């Protein structure tokens, strides 16, 4: 019996096979509960429900203000249940209760409210002035795509779920959402809030299960009109291929190896905090983490000392304790991946100046092998594998530079371009650098500040399209141009002569 069931057509249901998988607390490896395991058949069932809700249901035809009211209600319910969702998110993902309480839950509610606002404020019909073919009249109508599939990763399960479902639903689409198998609990819990918010059956469907079956079905099923994915670059490529079968538009938010540039005029106290926050927040399991700190040579030694001193003060432990700064990695496998990269770093670069292992000891019930200490490698050449490959763990590469041009060149020497930072007392200088960075977001004297009001996405192999902002709303709509010729006589149809004056 599943503790967490699939949410299809407005109801919680078991998987067709009756199979479940166990979701665990990565801090203890103890089970949290059984999750219904969707396979291809369940995915098809969810897609079919979304298809029917779109084709035959009221949702796409509701005024934007009515869809907005439902999304605002969902946000209100989420906030009313904030502690329950935060606790579940923290336990299921290993992220700290601080992160869940102050980033995941409010961020998810904020995304719902932002896209509700978009549904109200963004017109779905724009009259166009000055027709090039007078006396014709023209307007553009914005319409939903239809069924939108959203596939989200393990690092911000609830937040990413709302980044996908909120714009889709606000624009009048219906949605099938698949959270990551490691962290499917809070996304599935959203179903109960959708029921309470009176979102019509089939408009929002949530399934959990292996990507190799359920995910593949979402990306390839002809009844799906659009796919949005956040996760691995290689999976993004796979989704593009699967979606190409029926020319589905895709939105991809993929990997990163972002550079955080610390200039010689930076406030070192703040800059060090920005680098540590930018790297180690959520154990570095953040796509746009600034895992390459490019530090000017004139301040290099002092800055590295600051980093090491403060990294040593980051508290690792029970993620459900508000005093904990870093909980476990999402899984043992992820911790092992980090270990592998640290071994690579030792071979290529030398010993890290701090970290480099799991913590020695934690509270009795915590599985130390699932945790990893903040790890800093210094004197790293940007060609090193640890500086080129995304580790998705708490590993910082500190890379020296001498000129602004060199910093820009190093920062851009990556297949990715998702995030980045510039730390400087001279904002004009920092902006000049930011303008040259091939990346979707740059934080000056800050890091990780993402908000639903601003676009987010990647250059190069970090993705396609932008989520959030008004751009993140428009990708869930398509434009239809309507041309009306009001002429009553042949004079208004001279252009037919391009074929023949005799028609």
């Amino acid at each position, binding site marked *: 019996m599943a503790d967490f069931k699939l949410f299809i057509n407005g109801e919680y249901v078991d998987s067709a096979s009756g199979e479940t*998988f166990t979701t665990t607390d990565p801090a203890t490896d103890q089970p949290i509960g059984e999750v219904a395991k969707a396979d291809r058949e369940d995915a098809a069932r969810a897609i079919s429900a979304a298809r029917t809700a779109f084709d035959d249901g009221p949702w796409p035809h509701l005024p934007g203000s009515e869809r907005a009211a439902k999304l605002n209600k969902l946000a209100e319910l989420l906030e009313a249940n904030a502690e329950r969702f935060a606790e579940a998110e923290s336990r299921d993902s290993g992220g700290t209760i*601080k992160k869940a309480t102050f980033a995941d839950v409010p961020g998810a509610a904020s995304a719902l409210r932002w896209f509700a606002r978009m549904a109200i404020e963004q017109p779905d019909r724009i009259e166009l002035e000055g027709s090039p073919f007078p006396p014709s009249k023209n307007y553009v109508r914005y319409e939903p795509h239809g069924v939108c599939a959203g596939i989200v990763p393990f690092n911000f399960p609830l937040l990413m779920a709302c980044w996908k479902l909120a714009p889709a639903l606000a624009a009048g689409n219906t949605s099938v959402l698949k959270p990551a198998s490691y962290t499917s609990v809070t996304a599935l819990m959203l179903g109960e809030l959708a029921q309470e918010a009176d979102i019509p059956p089939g408009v929002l469907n949530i399934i959990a299960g292996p990507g190799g079956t359920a*995910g593949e079905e979402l990306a390839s099923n002809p009844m799906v009109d659009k796919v949005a994915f956040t996760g691995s670059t290689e999976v993004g490529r796979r989704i593009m291929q699967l979606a190409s079968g029926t020319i589905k538009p895709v939105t991809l938010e993929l990997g990163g190896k972002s550079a955080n540039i610390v200039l010689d005029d930076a406030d070192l106290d703040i800059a060090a905090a920005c680098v540590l926050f930018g790297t180690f927040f959520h154990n570095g399991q953040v796509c746009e983490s600034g895992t390459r700190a490019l530090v000017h040579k004139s301040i290099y030694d002092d800055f590295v000392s600051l980093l090491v001193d403060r990294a040593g003060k980051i*508290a690792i432990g029970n993620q459900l*304790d508000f005093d904990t700064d870093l909980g476990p990695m999402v899984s043992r496998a992820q911790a092992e991946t980090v270990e592998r990269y640290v*071994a690579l770093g030792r071979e290529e670069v030398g010993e890290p100046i701090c970290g480099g292992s799991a913590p020695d000891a934690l509270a009795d019930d915590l599985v130390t092998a699932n945790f990893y200490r903040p790890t800093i490698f210094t004197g790293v050449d940007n060609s090193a594998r640890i500086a080129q490959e995304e580790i998705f763990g708490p590993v910082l590469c500190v890379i020296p530079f001498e000129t602004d041009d060199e910093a820009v060149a190093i920062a851009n020497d990556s297949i990715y371009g998702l995030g980045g930072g510039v730390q400087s007392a001279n904002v004009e200088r920092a902006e000049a650098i930011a303008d040259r960075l091939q990346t979707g977001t740059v934080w000056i004297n800050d890091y990780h500040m993402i908000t639903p009001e601003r676009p987010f996405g990647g250059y190069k192999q970090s993705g396609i399209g932008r989520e959030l902002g008004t751009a993140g709303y428009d990708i869930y709509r398509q434009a239809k141009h309507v041309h009306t010729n009001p002429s009553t006589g042949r004079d208004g149809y001279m252009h037919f002569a391009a074929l023949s004056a005799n028609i």
Partner: protein
Amino acid sequence: MRVSASARAAEVVAAMGERRTGTLTVTIGTGCCESTAPFLYEDFWPGPDQEAVGEVSGVTIYAPEYLRRLYPGDQGPRLEVVDELAESLSVETELGVRLALRGTGLDSTDEPQACEVPAAPRRSAPTRSAHPVAERTVVGRPPPELEGLRFR
């Protein structure tokens, strides 16, 4: 770059060959949640910059130029199997396992002790139980700095 495979990885790939009718391909991909990782796909187009870097159970392993450059010569990790869930679209996930890259052909040295990371305060000491959901609860209060933080 040469990518080898453990016996278990070969078994998993062979098992998927039995379950899938299309042509299987392993591609070593990069980025985000799984770092650099192997992906077993059915009827996959590897892309113009991919070359074969190994074989497992008759299935070719491809890697992009970008990665081949980082692992020159015979260097390369080994295909292994972890008994964990994963979110990729890699087809072996339907077996409840995930292919992973392990080993580097390189030795790691002793663990450094340059900076000590303190454990969080042990204000609660929950014990193992059959119902950990009920046992493990939130501890403490939010830090005051965050109390005033509100998303719009």
